[in-house]
């Protein structure tokens, strides 16, 4: 046991050296680290939001709304598919109840033709089926979502949403956000160093779905005020309605959506000099917009953002070229935010903020300072205690402990792990627990000496007998740490990571390294007596 071949000594020393070197960039000041980074890679430990300050936002998609949006889109494509068939298929009694789209084919002899025309709509580009087609009562066609359809749609929507959020946050400037999908319908957004998350939340919380619909000018104002719409119309909220009503009736169909924009910029209205947003459609959207304005010159059209009318101007003349201006009661900031949101595209699904945590940088800095202070005091007291109690063997344990601290930092840097506030506590705890292995070994050596064994034999027995308990004790800690990691979230995971790394490195330093040094000492001096 006390026999250490030379190659083993070299290997262990090299391992320690590499591990500790890895820790160095993390403890250097940022400016020096930046200079160093030009010559060598500088893996660093990330600081968690609770230490660096910043915002953590958990967004959840409204899945029921996604299903509704899909149904709406399906209705649109079904209507145009039925119009395009030759001869045209007349349909009526369209319903989107119960998560299904159903309609009656007026001429029941056309049911088969209608089915034929619908087939391309029921599968997606990957070839798997999104919708099931059924026929009830001879002429009523029912389209119901296939089981995988909604899941795939959600999955795609979440991916798109993640990209959209990424684009929107990047538009804010130099932030370094982490945006990850979590579970089926959630997205985590973490932005370090952001003190006031209001601007961020205003950006990512908005769906930014822009629509243009004709105002239903024949609607009865009394009915509209009560929120009742005629057939083919819908009532939408309109907070800035000049007529004083809180809402307005718009025609359900025949509008165009603003999801095909190539540009959106904040500007000022030339007449009123108030903040506004100019938008430019792509060529297809521009043509549609031109057609709509041409056919409806003189009428009012509503500009709708996320289901709420922001203004309803009159179409004075056809608008060609696809450039339009949106005015409403904007401030400079809100016009800017809206143009960013429109530029980066609408979110395919509404996202709600279900959890939000923000930490100011001062509190984080205070936590780091106090955490480091506690770690330093804790470590120093242990070093003194170990040396006082175990002498030479305590000294070995102390060197191992210091190396252990370096190794934990090194491994964390290499793994690009995040140090959180509970992580610092985990660090302090690991320092205390790391010497436990040495205590076990040294106490055992003491016992074996008392039983009258010779020095070398006592040391050998000490290491051998203590390893069993060290192994079991650390195994239980690993079990707890792994569960902590699996079930924990955010800062707690940071704590679990420190614990796991600490357990592995502390066994290595406290058992393997000290044994190597003890073996070297025994070989050199052949001690007949041992003070421990």
């Amino acid at each position, binding site marked *: 046991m006390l026999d250490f071949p030379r190659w083993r000594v070299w290997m262990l020393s090299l391992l320690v050296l590499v591990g500790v070197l890895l820790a160095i960039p993390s403890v250097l000041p940022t400016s020096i680290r930046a200079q160093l980074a030009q010559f060598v890679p500088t893996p660093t430990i990330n600081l968690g939001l609770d230490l660096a300050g910043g915002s953590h936002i958990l967004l959840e998609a409204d899945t029921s709304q996604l299903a509704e949006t899909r149904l709406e889109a399906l209705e649109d494509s079904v209507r145009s598919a039925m119009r395009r068939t030759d001869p045209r298929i007349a349909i009526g009694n369209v319903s989107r109840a119960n998560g299904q789209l159903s309609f009656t084919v007026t001429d029941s002899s056309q049911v088969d033709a209608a089915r034929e025309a619908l087939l391309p709509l029921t599968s997606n580009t990957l070839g798997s089926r999104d919708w099931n087609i059924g026929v009830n009562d001879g002429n009523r066609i029912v389209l119901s979502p296939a089981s995988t359809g909604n899941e795939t749609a959600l999955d795609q929507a979440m991916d798109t949403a993640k990209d959209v959020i990424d684009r929107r946050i990047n538009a804010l400037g130099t932030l370094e956000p982490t945006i990850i999908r979590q579970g089926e319908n959630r997205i985590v957004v973490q932005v370090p160093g952001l003190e006031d998350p209001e601007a961020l939340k205003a950006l990512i919380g908005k769906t930014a779905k822009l629509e243009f619909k004709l105002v239903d000018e024949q609607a009865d104002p009394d009915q509209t005020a009560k929120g009742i719409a005629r057939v083919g119309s819908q009532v939408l909220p309109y907070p800035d309605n000049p007529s004083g009503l809180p809402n307005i009736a718009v025609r359900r169909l025949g509008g165009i959506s603003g999801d095909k924009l190539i540009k959106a910029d904040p500007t000022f209205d030339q007449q009123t000099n108030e903040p506004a947003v100019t938008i430019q459609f792509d060529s297809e959207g521009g043509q549609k917009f031109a057609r709509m304005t041409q056919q409806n010159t003189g009428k009012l059209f509503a500009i709708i953002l996320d289901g709420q009318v922001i203004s309803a101007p009159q179409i004075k003349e056809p608008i060609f070229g696809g450039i339009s201006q949106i005015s409403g009661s904007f401030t400079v900031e809100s016009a800017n935010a809206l143009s960013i949101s429109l530029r980066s595209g609408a979110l395919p699904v509404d996202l709600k903020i279900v959890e939000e945590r923000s930490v100011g940088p001062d*509190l984080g800095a205070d936590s780091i300072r106090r955490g480091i202070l506690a770690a330093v005091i804790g470590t120093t007291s242990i070093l003194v205690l170990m040396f006082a*109690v175990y002498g030479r063997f305590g000294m070995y344990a102390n060197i191992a402990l210091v190396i252990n601290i370096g190794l934990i930092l090194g491994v964390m840097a290499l793994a690009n792990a995040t140090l959180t506030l509970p992580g610092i506590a985990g660090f*302090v705890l690991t320092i*205390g627990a790391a010497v436990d292995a040495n205590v076990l070994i040294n106490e055992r050596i003491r016992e074996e000496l008392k039983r009258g064994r010779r020095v070398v034999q006592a040391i050998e027995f000490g290491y051998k007998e203590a390893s069993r308990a060290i192994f079991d004790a650390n195994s239980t800690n690993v079990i707890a740490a792994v569960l902590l990691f699996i*079930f924990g979230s955010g800062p707690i995971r940071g704590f679990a990571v420190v614990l796991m790394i600490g357990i592995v490195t502390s066994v290595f330093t406290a058992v393997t390294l000290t044994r190597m040094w003890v073996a070297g000492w025994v070989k050199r001096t052949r001690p007949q007596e041992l003070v421990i």
Partner: protein
Amino acid sequence: MKLLKLVPDDTNIDFLKWRVFAFALSLVLMAASIGLVATKGLNFGVDFIGGQMIRATFTQSATAPVSELRTKVGTLGYGEPTIQRFGKENQVSIRMKLPEGADKNPELANAMAVKITNKLKADYPGVRIDGVDSVSGKVSEELFSKGMLALLAAMAGVSLYIWIRFEWQFGVGAIWSLVHDVTLTFGLFSLVGLEFDLNIIAALLTIIGYSLNDTVVVYDRIRENLMKFRKMDMAGLLNLSVNETLARTVMTSVSISLPLLVLVFFGPDVIFGFSLAMAFGIIVGTYSSIYQAAPILIWLKVGPHSFVPTEGAAPKAERLGESFGAQP
């Protein structure tokens, strides 16, 4: 050189003499803890009941105007706030229930935070907002159930490990002492009314790991002595094992509690509860491995017959120990 000895050589303290008394005391304390949690309840943070917590420091005054704040925030129309000092005298956390309908419309929660922080900034020019936490009811329910699941899984997991490595009685002893430690920590939090949040669950899981650390060392010695002294009566054997490992128990407890106590007294305020839970749990855990985990083996009728030295758990354990640590 004269070395320091925390525990004199060859102690022979009759720890087990007090086992019935200690067990009764522990039962009473556990019952009291459960009773406290049932009647007084735990001071759950927003992590577990949802709501909003705003942390603020009043940089220009020595103490935070807690009662004044309570009235001021109360008049904003969002109901009565829970205001607590944390850390320094001029730091407070203001906790609010989320406004009605905030689950559907997060704007409402947002608006509340803005309104409260604006009110603070307007009325107290020196105020510094240190953070805002907003957790919806749905997320808090998930965090709570996940946290409890983690606790149960950890207790079951480590006990199972002990059962595999030792004997089933040792597994029972381990889980009993864990339940003991966790229950008393719950009781402490209910008693002092410290905020119970996700961090405390993390502390409890760590306590489970380290409380068992002690138990394992004592158990390992009991197993070794059971195979060595096959005629010794059980109480005497447990006493011997506890005494033999006493120096280590004391030394390790001191070396783990030292940094934890430093953390409690000098560490970051935000994790005061977390540090306290760990320090308390480690100390209770040391007591429980001597006075709960060990005597339970007598009542579960563990004896030399539990380990047949030729084949079974112990030699296997020894082989594992060797392959892990010592070189042949």
